[in-house]
């Protein structure tokens, strides 16, 4: 039954993709739906979902990273590859419709290029997909072979090394990833095949086009296909230097099996890292499920490590929540971020110290704890306090992720205590309070905060903290102002430690001095910290 996907293009419904039956009826993508209906009354249609198509293709591409180090999404026509105005580029770029894999140095793992391709076709066919593979020396040539060769035999779809020019010669120029208008132009010039194109002297070719850009585009694509010009490609998955992989003849379905394999991989990765004197800061554990989907489990480490046990525990936590589906037939463990880590380390030292029941092994346990906390809660939620040189109380200390530095006792002495008392608890933002106080600089006598009123019986202050004139800090909002940070210069603060009749202690300040800083807004009171 003829079936087509339709999408509204410039206000009219247009066919975007067709099945074989529809193609046999003579329809082609780009045709208006009304015209297609006239030609084939029984045409069934479905709305196209380009976004879903793209994400499905991306998922599949990630899964394909099992076959090679670099995976890219291929686009049918990308206009001028060298330079192009942004608008032209947008118009020329089609939606990605293929997946490119770089298999340099990988084929032998599968028993040769032919076996690799056969394995790939077998698996993808198993998912119910139709595959048109192509294998060649360059991405351009592989692209052309995959799309232009009609033979179903794998032998015809693999271009042996060095035969690229010969094998590409009979293929149509459309296979060169050129924009449709350029292809039409070439046809008009009588250049139907890549071979004919390659024979034309280059200066002549450039002159024949109406614009330099088009000529340059054709030549660049030709050179890229023939391997004369390089072609940078951005991989979906960044290739990593440190990684280990394990394939399974039969898909693993039990989590125990996966866990055991993870242990092997962790040991393998630790050995690889040890040879290079490196320690991992980030790990990515990838599970390739046999149904063509991929699960990636990332994990961060608070300090460089190459302890297999650490890797294992860290990832095992997250593995428990993973649905293995129909089984896992390939697992990889990679360390995309590493740091130098000297040879003297870890297992031996840890063994010795744990035997002595010493605290050194605790440092490792703490690192593991922090890694676990951060990997579940997020790195920006596991924090430590770090003193900072500032007189402003809220800036005298910054919260930094524990990851920034291993949690260890501080080596430098704490900053000298300046000024008056500081509360053990600071509110995230100073909160406006209603205060009755003597003008100009008496301590509060009454305080209303969060709808609770209290009488202040004791007070100490003021401790005057001037704004840092070199910092463009904005003023604080008074209770009657809606804006969180009014555009106002910061003003002097007078801090008071006050105690109410019940013994509760607050740290409050008045922003602004009476008589001197009143011009823009009257001074206002804020509660900043709590003692008890």
């Amino acid at each position: 039954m003829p079936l087509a996907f339709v999408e509204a293009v410039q206000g009219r419904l247009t066919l975007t993709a067709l099945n074989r039956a529809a193609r046999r009826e003579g329809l082609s993508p780009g045709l208006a739906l009304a015209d297609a209906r006239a030609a084939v009354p029984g045409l069934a249609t479905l709305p196209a979902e380009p976004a879903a198509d793209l994400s499905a293709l991306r998922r599949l591409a990630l899964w394909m990273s099992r076959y090679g180090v670099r995976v890219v999404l291929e686009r049918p026509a990308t206009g001028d590859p060298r330079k192009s105005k942004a608008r032209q580029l947008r118009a020329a770029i089609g939606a990605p419709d293929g997946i490119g894999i770089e298999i340099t140095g990988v084929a032998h793992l599968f028993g040769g290029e032919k076996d690799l391709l056969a394995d790939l076709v077998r698996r993808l066919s198993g998912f119910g997909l139709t595959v048109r593979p192509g294998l060649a020396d360059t991405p351009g040539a592989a692209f052309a072979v995959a799309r232009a060769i009609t033979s179903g035999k794998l032998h015809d779809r693999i271009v042996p090394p060095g035969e690229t020019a010969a094998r590409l010669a009979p293929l149509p120029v459309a296979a060169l990833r050129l924009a449709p208008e350029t292809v039409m132009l070439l046809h008009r010039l009588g250049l139907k095949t890549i071979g004919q194109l390659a024979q034309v002297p280059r200066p002549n070719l450039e002159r024949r086009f109406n614009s330099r850009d088009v000529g340059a585009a054709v030549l660049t694509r030709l050179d890229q296909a023939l391997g004369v010009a390089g072609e940078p490609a951005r991989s979906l998955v960044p290739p990593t230097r440190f990684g280990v992989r394990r394939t399974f003849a039969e898909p693993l379905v039990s989590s125990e099996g996966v866990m055991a394999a993870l242990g092997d991989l962790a040991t393998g990765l630790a050995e690889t890292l040890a040879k290079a004197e490196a320690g991992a800061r980030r790990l990515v554990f990838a599970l390739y499920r046999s149904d063509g989907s991929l699960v990636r489990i990332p994990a961060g480490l608070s300090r460089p490590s190459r302890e297999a046990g650490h890797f294992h525990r860290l990832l095992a936590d997250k593995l428990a929540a993973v649905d293995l589906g129909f089984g896992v037939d390939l697992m990889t463990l990679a360390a995309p971020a590493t740091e130098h880590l000297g040879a003297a380390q870890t297992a031996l030292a840890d063994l010795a110290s744990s035997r002595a029941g010493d605290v050194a092994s605790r440092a490792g346990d703490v690192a593991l704890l922090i890694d676990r906390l951060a990997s579940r809660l997020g790195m920006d939620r596991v924090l430590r306090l770090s003193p900072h040189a500032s007189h402003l109380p809220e800036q005298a200390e910054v919260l930094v992720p524990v990851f920034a530095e291993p949690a260890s006792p501080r080596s430098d002495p704490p900053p000298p205590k300046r000024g008056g008392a500081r509360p053990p608890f600071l509110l995230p933002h100073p909160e406006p309070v209603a205060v009755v106080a003597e003008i100009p600089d008496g301590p509060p006598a009454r305080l209303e905060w969060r709808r609770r009123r209290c009488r202040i019986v004791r007070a100490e202050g003021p401790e005057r903290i001037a704004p840092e004139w070199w910092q463009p800090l904005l003023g604080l909002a008074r209770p009657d102002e809606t804006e969180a940070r009014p555009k106002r210069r910061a003003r002097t603060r007078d801090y008071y430690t006050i105690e109410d009749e019940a013994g509760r202690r607050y740290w409050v300040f008045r922003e602004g001095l009476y008589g001197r800083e009143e011009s823009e807004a009257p001074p206002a009171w804020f509660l900043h910290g709590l003692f008890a």
Partner: protein
Amino acid sequence: MRADPERSLAPAPTPQARERASACSFSHGPAGRPWTLGIEDIDRFLPGHGLAPGGLHEVKPATPADTPAAQALGLALMARWLRAAPPRARLLLWAATWRDIGEAGRPYGPGLAALGLDPAHLILIEARRDSEVLWAIEEGLRAGALAGVVGSVAKLGLTAARRLALAAATYETPCLLLTPATLPSVPVAMSRWRVGASPGARHALDASLPAQMRFHLTLERCRGREAGRSWIVEWSDASFRFRLAAPLADRASRPGFARRPAG
């Protein structure tokens, strides 16, 4: 640092010296040390002469307004325990939700020194939900590498509390739970303290200045002891010690004492 009369006049083996001595011989986990308040009257009352280090202890404010007091007392108590630990093992995990931090503030390094806590020893967890706080507390306890865990939770189920109590006991890591005043308390806690602010000590020179902080401390529950005793304790931010502020305050609650005729 202010001159502290207690320190200079103390008899030869002070509790601190004892703690230091026991810290030096520390070899097999922190279980051997007692976790005292440093107030003989209270420590004597507690089983094992102090709080159980491998246990869950609940600290509750008397009223919602006393939450900072409960937090401060909890941290001061933990700081006492930390100072007795060997220097490398003094890490403390503090976990709270964003909401709790907005309510009662987050630990502030420059002010923690007054509670006897080095900010460098603190790992802060800012969680989105109570469940994350509970998870973080449990992980912290189970790591077995921390000196203690302080967590602030708004809701606490019995199962979750049991898990925490079990983890604290198994890994011998003390756990302080700060819970809201209105939350029904958990029966698995080794002790439950109700903390309220109390008018501070009189300043020696000027009565209008705040001096040492005082807390109204009630032991609402303690495994193996009758509950309901209360004390007023005073925190000295110079010597980092608690002391009993008003010994008389306790006598009133003892049956028979207050009703005794004056003559």
